[in-house]
């Protein structure tokens, strides 16, 4: 028993050192691009963990998840960039330097707004069959995108297809993550790039989300969600308020999405409607499904695999692109693989690549 515990501790320490050293090792390749890819992958992990609450725990299919991400990203984009001040005289008068709201305030606000929007959206559909929820969320995702694209007229709120740029970088207690920082101990100096700093920040949030997800899973609410997922009628008969619980799951997933959106906006320092297409929503669903619906390590694996895939393809696909005369570009290959993964995984391994250990009956037989 003690040996087992020591073994676990060793694995844990190695994993921790590995995760902390990863960006520094990647930096050694000479460019920031790989660290950037890992940063984006971590954001996808956050999104997938949020969606996992909705799809994995409560068994509700949300096809417009990226809309909540967009809500968060645009909230930060509007509240922490010169855009609004440039286009509205009243705001210009109040804030001559443009709006620069603190990111943590925006994050709390985004969590609340996204959660409320999620609940409003879920309220009419959640008492009905799950299929309707899929369609209405899909529709909502499109509506948000249409508004983002078109709200540059008659008054310019979202700047339309051009998007919002010059968004403030993230600061933690006055520590600006958008700049390089040099650490020097004696003669030894190391320069931290912004992407590396963001890596640690995102890692922190991912770990937070993982801990939260596990705590939720074992809580009374989490067990109630799973009961609903397995058999809604039976859950109702046990005295669960299925409608409110489903609303809670939906709202909580939306909260995750909104907060990730704020992080995304501060990381990219630019948001445009292009980042929030239906394809992105489908991609996050694919991550959860491919990895293992409702199983946290599986979901993380799925997110990392699908987020890393296009980058790997970009390097591998060259001969194929030439062979097919440009028809099979990396983008098309990526979409093909995601589509195939969704169909084939559901048919062959309906519980995903790394499913949860069996506790009685599970989501997919």
């Amino acid at each position, binding site marked *: 028993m003690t040996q087992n515990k020591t073994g676990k501790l060793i694995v844990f320490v190695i994993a921790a050192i590995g995760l902390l050293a990863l960006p520094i090792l990647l930096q050694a390749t000479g460019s920031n691009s790989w660290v950037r890819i890992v940063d984006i992958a971590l954001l996808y992990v956050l999104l997938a963990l949020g969606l996992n609450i909705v799809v994995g725990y409560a068994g509700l299919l949300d096809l417009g998840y990226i809309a909540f991400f967009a809500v968060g990203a645009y909230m930060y984009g509007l509240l922490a960039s010169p855009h609004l001040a440039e286009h509205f005289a009243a705001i210009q008068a109040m804030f001559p330097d443009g709006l620069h709201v603190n990111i943590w305030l925006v994050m709390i606000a985004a969590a609340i707004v996204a959660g409320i929007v999620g609940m409003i959206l879920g309220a009419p559909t959640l008492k009905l069959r799950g299929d309707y929820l899929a*369609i209405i969320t899909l529709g909502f995702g499109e509506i948000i995108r249409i508004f983002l694209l*078109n709200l540059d007229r008659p008054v310019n709120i979202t700047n339309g297809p051009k998007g919002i740029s010059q968004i403030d970088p993230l600061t933690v207690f006055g520590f600006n993550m958008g700049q390089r920082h040099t650490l020097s101990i004696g003669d030894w100096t190391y320069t931290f790039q912004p992407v590396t700093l963001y890596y640690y920040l995102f890692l922190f949030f991912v770990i937070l989300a993982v801990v939260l997800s596990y705590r939720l899973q074992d809580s009374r609410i989490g067990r109630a969600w799973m009961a609903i997922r397995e058999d809604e009628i039976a859950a109702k008969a046990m005295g669960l308020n299925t409608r409110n619980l489903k609303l809670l799951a939906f709202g909580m997933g939306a909260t995750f999405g909104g907060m990730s959106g704020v992080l995304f906006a501060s990381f990219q320092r630019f948001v445009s409607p292009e980042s929030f297409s239906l394809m992105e929503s489908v991609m996050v669903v694919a991550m959860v499904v491919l990895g293992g619906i409702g199983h946290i390590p599986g979901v993380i694996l799925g997110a990392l695999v699908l987020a890393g895939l296009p980058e790997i393809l970009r390097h591998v696909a060259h001969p194929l692109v030439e062979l097919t005369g440009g028809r099979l570009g990396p983008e*098309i290959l990526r979409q093909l693989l*995601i589509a195939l993964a*969704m169909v084939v995984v559901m048919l062959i391994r309906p519980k995903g690549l790394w499913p949860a250990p069996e506790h009685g009956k599970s989501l997919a037989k």
Partner: protein
Amino acid sequence: MDVLLQQIINGLVLGSMYALVALGYTMVYGIIGLINFAHGDVLMVGALTSWTIIRMMMEASVGMPGWLILLLATIIAMVVCAALNFTIEKLAYRPLRNSPRLAPLITAIGMSLLLQTFAMIIWEPNPKAYPSMLPREPIAIGGAVISVTQIVILAVTAMTLAGLMFLVNKTNLGRAMRATAENPRVAALMGIKPDVVISATFIIGAMLAAIAGVMWASNYGTVQHAMGFMPGLKAFVAAVMGGIGNLAGAVVGGIALGLIESLGAGYLGQLTGGVLGSQYVDIFAFIVLALVLTLRPSGLLGERVADRA
């Protein structure tokens, strides 16, 4: 020009295309309770297939009149789509028929994406002009204009619907379909093979989608791999609006949605003083869906189980 009359004509044309697609959704949903997300993409395959056929025949300059080429292309597109939908059902949906609802739904989304990707590989992603095979001179009626294509769309929709109603209500296959929708187990005990009926449903749905796809392409003049998404989504809304599982409901819902959209596009700018323009037209379908689900979840013509197929 009379805006109201013009928008009503456009709405009827748009609505009849929605109705044809909505029928495919509603029939499949009525029998196996699955939202076939790939249905809109079957429409796209139909349109692109007919585009290829028309181009081949025009290049070969067979000397046939335009309408005949269009007819042939439509028939070939119907056959291709029928084969495609039959295969999809057999490979992707049938093995999951008894699994929980989420599994086939996710497969259906994957299938939709897969069809779009294949279309991108086969036909390349750029939008293509769809040649107009019917006379182009518009006909004026009472201050509005209607094109020959639009007249044909209305006529073909009416004929197709009549044929479908006959099939569902008067033939043995139709009776089997209605019985399976009612209760597949009991239907099987009565000597009906549910698998055959389900395959037939997918084939009929695909044929309707192919017809709608050719109509869509002829009416708007372009084809592309992503063209099936919006019509598919809206046709689903139409099906829910009419009461999902109900054939007459799908038609009523489709035409109603077409009218709402086209009148909305025509008057939204005026009503809101230019704040919201016709670029917001795609939102109507979802507002309608939200309203229907809140106020009357069973749809306009819901609960009339006898009509289900």
